């Protein structure tokens, strides 16, 4: 169980950041419905956590929003424009994705990886400065020349985040970005993301992390939305019991006033 005591500072919402609207989206694989009519809205510049047990459709929903999967029904709108109808490259200029534990066999320096974020954009002389600034943002400017393969898991995730920042997206999609990170890096990563002020949708496993960092949480169960709203409203014993099958006690973090959950078997 993690007990969070990092103060969470809400950033000033970036003026004019577009909202994300997922409307009645469905996606199935091999005839099995994985995402079943999901609707959600992420307010401009805020962070929404996508929660749910294994196999509840979190990753599939993220991939459908990212355009990796083509939805069988429904639409995904960013700032009013249909992401699904967009050319792949245009979409990549507006939406950046950080997947869990994505790695490579190729010998790459950290800066090479971050520069991949410029792929959808026209090559420009300022690309390297952008990439270095993004590394600065995630606190890895000094490691720009390091070999990717010498980095720890936490450093790799931060490099991926820097890559996503370099993509200059309006929407950031994160698929369990804190998986396998130690507690320090888990908090550091989500603090970075939160401080960016970019509209963010993140699949998270850890309910306490979601409670501490997200402005809104959406709980998926069997591909459908089981509950959605502010963490304090959604992460209540009833929801946790019916979706995750465990009993939960809710406390308040004395530093942040955010909910902290402790669990017991039913």
């Amino acid at each position, binding site marked *: 169980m993690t007990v969070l005591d990092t103060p969470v500072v809400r950033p000033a919402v*970036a003026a004019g950041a577009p909202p994300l609207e997922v409307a009645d989206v469905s996606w199935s694989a091999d005839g099995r419905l994985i995402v079943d009519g999901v609707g959600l809205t992420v307010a401009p510049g805020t962070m929404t956590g996508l929660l749910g047990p294994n196999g509840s459709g979190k990753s599939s929903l993220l991939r459908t929003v990212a355009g990796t999967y083509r939805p069988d029904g429904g639409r995904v709108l960013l700032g009013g424009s249909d992401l699904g109808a967009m050319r792949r490259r245009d979409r990549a*200029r507006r939406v950046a994705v950080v*997947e869990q534990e994505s790695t490579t066999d190729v010998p790459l320096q950290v800066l090479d*990886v971050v520069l991949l974020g410029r792929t959808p954009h026209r090559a420009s002389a300022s690309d390297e400065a952008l990439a270095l600034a993004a590394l600065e943002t995630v606190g890895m400017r000094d490691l720009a020349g390091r070999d990717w393969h010498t980095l720890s898991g936490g450093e790799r995730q931060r490099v991926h985040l820097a890559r996503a920042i370099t993509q200059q997206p309006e929407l950031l999609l994160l698929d369990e970005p804190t998986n396998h990170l130690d507690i320090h890096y888990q908090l550091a990563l989500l603090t970075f993301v939160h401080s960016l002020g970019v509209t963010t949708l993140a699949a998270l496993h850890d309910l306490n992390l979601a409670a501490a960092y997200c402005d809104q949480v959406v709980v998926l169960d069997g591909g459908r939305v089981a509950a959605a709203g502010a963490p304090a409203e959604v992460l209540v014993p009833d929801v946790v019991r019916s979706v995750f099958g465990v009993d939960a006690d809710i406390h308040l973090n004395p530093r942040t006033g955010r909910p902290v959950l402790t669990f017991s078997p039913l």
Partner: protein
Amino acid sequence: MTTTVAPPAAGASAPELRRSGARTTAWIAVMAAVLAASVTLAVTIGSADLHPLDVWRSIGDHLGLSSSSLSLLRDGIVWELRLPRVLTAAAVGAALALCGAVMQTLTRNPLADPYLLGLSSGASVGAVAVLILGIGRLGLPAAAFAGALLALVVTFALANRRGELAPTRTVLAGLAVSYLCSAATSFIIFWSATGDSYREILSWLLGSLGGASWGDAAIVWVAVVVVGTVLVSRARTLDAFAFGDSTASTLGINVNATRWTLLTLVALLTGAAVAVSGAIGFVGLMLPHAVRFIVGSGHRAVLPLSALAGASFMIWADTLARTLFDPRELPVGVVTAFLGAPAFAVLLRRRRVGR
């Protein structure tokens, strides 16, 4: 109006990272010089006593740039005998190295080489059939080429699943096609080869540049220049494959269309190389890795440098092949395998250490 993430401006002077542009250009200049020197020297090596300047005199004469007093005999050795062979070797080496670099990226398999998708064995079936039927050398490139393309189409058809070309499936399909074609080749030889045609087939199967003509050189050079230009123009796209298909897709790459297009181009290029030289192994596997160890894995650097290094390497491998046991000629595939296998072993050990 849209708002994007604007990272704070950092003190962006980074001397240790100013590597990409200038360093790549320097390496390309060096490797181009090495290639020019290799062509010149390789032409002079052999039974007749030629001076490097004779090579350029002959070239100048034939291009109408000069008129020297080079004897007809020497000019003939340079222009008719050695130069086409050396230039064919260079183009074949460049083609194989380019194909290897692209295949390794697109299949995400560091052990991929240009022959992976059944290309060389498909080409072999075509070539051997032609050699047996005795249609002659003119039909050989076309048949090898057709065989390679047919093998590729079958491989794609086997690997294709709902319009997707998954790397592992593609490699396995290529393997199946390879074995089938090898069996077909052996069967044709078993059924009908005798004496001379048998020796010719064997030399072709092991890879040989003996008897390379200006026509051969032209086929491969055109293929290398055209396909190479397209591949280099897609360097950024290829870079985006480093973290796999789904990351490439979120970076705006149409993964399947790119893979179909570029693999077809690679097949064309491999077909051209195999048609004139037979199956020469290890060049396409080794050289891209060697280049990556030196300049990293950005394709803007890796592709041109692999091509240049492959060209020089093949020239010297072929020079060894034709001089080592003079007057008998060693198949150049044997030379590249002798040089390549140890290098491959080193590569494998390094990878194990790296894990």
